Every structure is written in structure tokens, then in C-alpha cells.
């Protein structure tokens, strides 16, 4: 057997993640001499260490450490120790004299505690993960964490904790944000590598130290139902055109005028037309167009008769448009179902639910109804924001997938080794255990416990074991439901009723009685044929088409989508 034949440090202990590497087979060795190097604020205080030193670094959390210093007689201000930078190195020498030195912890003293009786200063340290992230610019956090994020599901970044923001981004990443032993913030994927970085072979763990904490069923969510709402305003505009022509204006221009002049009658004024349109609840779009009664002329019709007219607002033929604007709320609801293996079968499913909504609010929508209609804008404008919709749905989908992945890696396998064998092992590494269990997973937690008095330095290593399987679908944003409506038809040709005579001067037919309900223009012929003939009121009436409720009430659409999430299967045989 070649125990100890290979010096511990001859293998590439500091495995660079991401580059090609060979697994490091941990060699047990026979004897190790170790010592520490503790620097506090750059000063070597190793000789004042006493008792037990421990560090605990876990994925996704700030690393902590603790040690106790004996301070020689002299004034001590424990408060001055707060915030001092701390580094802890472990120096291991094997029986062949090969020295391996590794950083165990980098941080700051978070909270010193002074024992006045024995002059002991107990220091709790932290690697300041939260403060480090808090101090980062948003762009750095974005590029570091990646992930999906939506200001609609969370809250806008301004004025908020950047640590919270980073956590929110990490919710959609199957990865952890933590600090390296040297204090660098990094993000590591949960997925275990195919090739382990370190292999702990038979006999490399401490006696009776291999432990497995299996995940209970209730925590293994395999079905996640997400209800997402996307709400936006739809800006409607309907412009209705009205056209009216005097029945005797049978030709355009002067010839038409001359025809009308034969038997003159009342004509509507511009004010009458615009009042009618606004009276119908519409807003004038543009001006009244058409043909106006011409001004005074010497001989317009070629019959020698001069024409005298001092009014410039009487219409022989008129067109006008009135418009309305209103806002319809459109709500798209997305029922997203994410399942891991077993989540589709009622007998095996463990359900969790989530929700989120995006509501587009716009000042344009608030002012839309009171703004002036214009023929240069389209009839329907959706104030939809595809970027926000996509961001929110992706955030929910990825967050859900991560939730399922996380729910399936609750099993933790841990073992203890002399710290001399665990130097270089970091949370980023994939570890393989071939002692008392056969397992391979990503390192989840590293705890060092160094007992100065007892002379022992023991490291507890935990790996996360993900169990599941199945196939996965791409997490693509579902298409939008169809909530469109056909354009509103409407527009009307207005009619004319002229009274003041018993019989129509042109056709000679009797004039029917005045109909108050008829739209259009009503007036009188200028020349009566009978004094008893009824005078019709002079008026101009229009009516706006009715907008069906479906165009006004909230419009809803629904989309369902099902995504399967593949769960990695890590090796675990006990």
C-alpha cells in the first residue's frame, strides 16, 4: 500500500474551477504537524490564540469564524477590535516534510467579547458577504448573478438594499452566492461536475463520521403552479364620420348652389353641426368640411340675377367627424405549471404555488379619455410592454424551476477528515466520497474546528445530493393570448326634413309631419304655400354609435403552459 507515498501537496490542490482538471485523490498520510497563522489587521497574533478556532462556510450564506485571543496586561478597548480584518491560514507539514499552506478564512471581526477575568477576547468574524454585495454597483451585481429579474415582481432597485436585489436575482439561478476563503464574492452553480475535483477514497474519513441527512418527502416539491397576471390598458379611439347634403344640392359647386337657389330653404350653420356632434357626446375631429353657401355674387347662375349673401357659415353639403376615446383594461392570465418527475401524477405530487402580476400603468392611459381624438392615431393602441411581460414571466419560470431544483437537493451527506486532508476543498468543488458511502455532489458546507489544546484540526465537509431525473423542457415565455377585437363599424349619412309648406315644391308631394326622432337636418322652405303649414324647428341632430360593452369592459385572455424540469441525479449509494 502506498499510504503517504505521494506527498499531499504534489497534486493540484487548488483546483481551478472551469478549467480542465484531473480529480485529486486525497491521500491519507500517516502523520501531520500543523500550525496556524492568524493575522488581525496585518499583525500576527497566532501566539495569542487559545482554545478552539472554528470557521463555518456554507453555500449562499456569509462565512463565519470565531477565535479567542489572550491579551497580555495593558489597556484593551474591545470596541477597537470591531471591524479589524482577519485572515486565518492553516499550515500543514506531513511526515515527509512537505508543507502545504491554505487560507481557511478571510473576514472581519464582527463582534468582540471581552472576558475581564481571564483577559480573553473572543472574536466572532464574518466574511462580510452582505456588505460586499451591498457595496457593488448594480451592473456588477447583474453581471455576477445573472438570472432574471422584474421590477414588477419585486420593487424598483433605487433606494433599496442591493443585497436584497442580489438575492432576488439569485432566486432564478440554480446557483449560490458566497465568498471564497480569500474573501472574493462569487457565484457557483449547484450542478455537480461530471468529474469530481476531489475524491475521498476508502479510509480517508474519520471513524464514524459519515452521515447522511435525507430529505423528507414533504419538502420535495415536484409540482409548482404559478398564476401570473399581465394587465395593461388598451387605448381605444373611435372616430365617427357624418355626412349631410341638402337634397337640392344635386351637383357640386356653383351648379349645385344654383339648383338649391330655385327653391331656397334653411341651411345648417357651422355651430349647429359642431354643437350636434359635441351634443352627442363626441369631440370634433378636424373642422366641418363640404360646400358653403357662396358669398354675394353678381350673376352666379348665368340667369342675370345677382346673389346676395352676408353669411359665411351656411352649408349646402357638410361632412364632420366626432371622436371618442376610452380605455379598456386587458388582463392576460398565465397558468404556468412546472413539474419535476412525479409531479404530474396525483398520487405522487407535492404541490406548491406561486403568483405574480404585472400591471402597466401609464399617464397616457390616465389622460387618454380627456384628450382630443385625432385621425392620425390608430383606433387601438395596446400599452403593452413586451419587455416587462417577458422579464416577469421569465423570472417566475426560472424562479419556479430553481424552486423545484432546490427542493430536490435537500439531501446532505457529510463526513469529517483531518483538516490536513481537506486543504484546498472549497464550496465550488464537486467532491466524491468512496468511503462508507458512494456519493458525488457539490460541496455545500465546510466547517473547520481547530482545537489548540487537543492538537486536533477536524474539517466537516458536506455535499448536496440532488436526486430526481426526468427530462426538461426549455423555459420559453408563452405566447400572448388573443384578446383582439374587430374594429367598430359606424358612420352615418344624415337625412333632411324640410317643412313650412304643405307640399314639396319640387315633387309636389305632401310633406309628411315633422318627426322629432329623425336625425339630420330639419328646417323650412323659404316660401310657404299655405299659412297653415307647420313650421319645422330648425335643428341639426346626430347620434353616436353605441360602443358594445365588450369594447369597454375588462378583456381577459388565458394561457396555460406546462414545463417539465429535469432534476440532476447525483450519485448516492449507501
Amino acid at each position, binding site marked *: 500500500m502506498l*499510504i503517504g507515498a505521494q506527498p499531499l501537496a504534489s497534486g493540484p490542490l487548488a483546483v481551478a474551477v472551469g478549467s480542465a482538471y484531473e480529480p485529486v485523490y486525497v491521500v*491519507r*498520510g*500517516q*502523520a*501531520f*504537524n*500543523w*500550525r496556524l497563522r492568524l493575522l488581525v489587521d496585518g499583525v500576527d497574533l497566532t501566539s495569542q490564540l487559545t482554545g478552539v478556532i472554528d470557521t463555518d462556510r456554507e453555500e449562499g450564506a456569509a462565512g463565519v469564524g470565531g477565535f479567542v485571543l489572550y491579551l497580555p496586561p495593558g489597556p484593551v478597548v474591545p470596541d477597537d477590535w470591531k471591524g479589524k480584518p482577519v485572515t486565518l491560514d492553516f499550515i500543514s507539514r506531513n511526515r515527509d516534510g512537505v508543507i502545504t499552506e491554505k487560507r481557511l478564512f478571510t473576514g472581519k471581526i464582527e463582534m468582540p467579547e471581552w472576558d475581564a477575568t481571564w483577559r480573553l477576547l473572543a472574536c466572532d468574524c464574518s466574511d462580510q458577504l452582505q456588505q460586499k454585495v451591498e457595496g457593488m454597483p448594480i451592473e456588477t451585481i447583474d453581471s455576477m448573478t445573472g438570472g432574471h429579474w422584474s421590477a414588477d415582481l419585486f420593487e424598483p432597485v433605487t433606494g433599496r438594499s442591493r443585497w436584497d436585489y442580489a438575492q432576488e436575482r439569485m432566486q432564478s439561478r440554480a446557483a449560490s452566492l458566497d465568498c471564497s476563503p480569500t474573501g472574493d464574492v462569487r457565484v457557483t452553480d449547484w450542478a455537480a461536475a461530471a468529474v469530481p475535483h476531489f475524491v475521498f477514497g*476508502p*479510509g*480517508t*474519513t*474519520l*471513524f*464514524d*463520521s*459519515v452521515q447522511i441527512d435525507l430529505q423528507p418527502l414533504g419538502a420535495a416539491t415536484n409540482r409548482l403552479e404559478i398564476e401570473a397576471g399581465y394587465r395593461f390598458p388598451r387605448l381605444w379611439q373611435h372616430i365617427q364620420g357624418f355626412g349631410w347634403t341638402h337634397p337640392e344640392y344635386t351637383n357640386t359647386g356653383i351648379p349645385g348652389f344654383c339648383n338649391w337657389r330655385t327653391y331656397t330653404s334653411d341651411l345648417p350653420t357651422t355651430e349647429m353641426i359642431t354643437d350636434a356632434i359635441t351634443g352627442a357626446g363626441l369631440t370634433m375631429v378636424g373642422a366641418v368640411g363640404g360646400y358653403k353657401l357662396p358669398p354675394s355674387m353678381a350673376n352666379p347662375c348665368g340667369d342675370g340675377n345677382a346673389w346676395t349673401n352676408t353669411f359665411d357659415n351656411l352649408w349646402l353639403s357638410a361632412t364632420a367627424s366626432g371622436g371618442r376615446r376610452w380605455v379598456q383594461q386587458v388582463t392576460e392570465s398565465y397558468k404556468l405549471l412546472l413539474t419535476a418527475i412525479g409531479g404530474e401524477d396525483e398520487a405522487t405530487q407535492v404541490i406548491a404555488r406561486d403568483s405574480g402580476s404585472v400591471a402597466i400603468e401609464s399617464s397616457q392611459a390616465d389622460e387618454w379619455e380627456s384628450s382630443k381624438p385625432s385621425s392620425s392615431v390608430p383606433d387601438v393602441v395596446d400599452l403593452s410592454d413586451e419587455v416587462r411581460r417577458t422579464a416577469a414571466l421569465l423570472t417566475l419560470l426560472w424562479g419556479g424551476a430553481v424552486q423545484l431544483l432546490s427542493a430536490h437537493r435537500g439531501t446532505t451527506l457529510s463526513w469529517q477528515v*483531518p483538516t*490536513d486532508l481537506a486543504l484546498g476543498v472549497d464550496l465550488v468543488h464537486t467532491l466524491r466520497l468512496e*468511503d*462508507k458511502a458512494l456519493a458525488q455532489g457539490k460541496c455545500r458546507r465546510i466547517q473547520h474546528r481547530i482545537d*489548540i*489544546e*487537543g*492538537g*486536533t*484540526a*477536524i474539517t466537516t465537509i458536506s455535499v448536496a445530493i440532488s436526486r430526481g431525473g426526468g427530462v426538461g423542457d426549455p423555459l420559453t415565455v408563452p405566447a400572448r393570448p388573443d384578446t383582439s377585437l374587430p374594429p367598430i363599424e359606424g358612420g352615418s349619412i344624415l337625412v333632411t326634413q324640410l317643412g313650412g309648406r304643405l307640399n314639396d315644391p319640387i315633387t309636389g308631394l305632401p310633406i309628411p309631419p315633422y318627426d322629432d326622432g329623425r336625425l339630420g337636418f330639419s328646417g323650412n322652405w323659404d316660401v310657404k304655400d299655405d299659412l297653415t303649414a307647420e313650421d319645422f324647428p330648425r335643428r341639426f341632430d346626430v347620434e353616436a354609435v353605441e360602443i358594445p360593452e365588450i369594447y369597454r369592459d375588462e378583456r381577459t385572455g388565458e394561457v396555460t403552459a406546462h414545463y417539465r424540469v429535469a432534476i440532476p441525479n447525483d450519485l448516492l449509494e449507501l
Partner: protein
Amino acid sequence: MSLPRIMLGGVELVLHSGAPVETLEPLGAGSQLLRMSDGAGVIQTHFEKMAGSISGQGWMPPGLSGLSYSLPMELRSTKVESIGGDGLVHNLTSTPRPDFPPWGLALVGREWVDTPCTVVGGVATLVAVPGATAYRVSWMPVFSVRATRPSENQDSGGNVHSWSLNWEEV
């Protein structure tokens, strides 16, 4: 040169307090044998320190009551430590008494004979003796210790003063 006496904190123990009995043993800390899963042992060592005790029985108390037991003291022991082997050069594992230099012995036939010994920086070098089959360097060590105040016992009937103290290397 007469054999030196035990000195603790500069106080010499006189024979009237009794002939001392000394023990010297490793301190049970700073090193562990870790058992691995297959039963193999891995030795982990942070430090090695010595401990011991001195006791005696004589006509007088030891006279060590005036020492400051809260501070480290120098213990000049008379417990002989020795390293044997074939070679002539040996690393001394503790500091020899300055008032009594290490001495060398060589085994010639069945007899141990003296051989000159020089110590430089904790390394003892013996002079070769023709026909020697083994060498040995011996010395009386000095430790910086934390000693307990002696526990004493007085039997007035027989005028016997018994006492003992323990010490640990600091």
C-alpha cells in the same frame, strides 16, 4: 564536579528536605491519534510539551513557599534525559542545564566509557571512541514551567516532612 541539585525559580532544593523523586512525562495535549474509518491512525500534532512532578520526604519542608506560582519559572531538573544511537551527532530535545553540560558515553565491549561532548545550538557532537558499538548523550534539562505550589505533609511524630509538586512546560 558534584551533581547539581534541582532548582525551581532559583531556589535550590536541599537534601534535608529529602532526596527528590522526579517524573518526566509528555503533556497529554497538543497531539492526537485520529482513527480513520478503516481503523488506521493518523497522528495530528500541533505541539509537544512536557510535564512532571517532584516529590520528596525529609526533615524539612522544601522551602519553595516564597516563589510566585502565578508566573512561569525556570526549573532546572536533575532527571537525566538521554539519546542513544550509533551516530555521533544528536539533536537535544530540550535545553541542557547551563551549570551542568551534557556528557557523552560510548559503549566499548560491555563498558560505557566517557567521551568528550560539545554542544552547539542544541546539537551535541561526540568524539568517536575506537571500538565503540553505541553512543549516548545525556543531559539534565531546563524547562520554563508553570509549577503548582507544593502540597506538603508534616508528620510530627517521626519528624517527617513530605511534599510534592507538579509542573507543566509553558
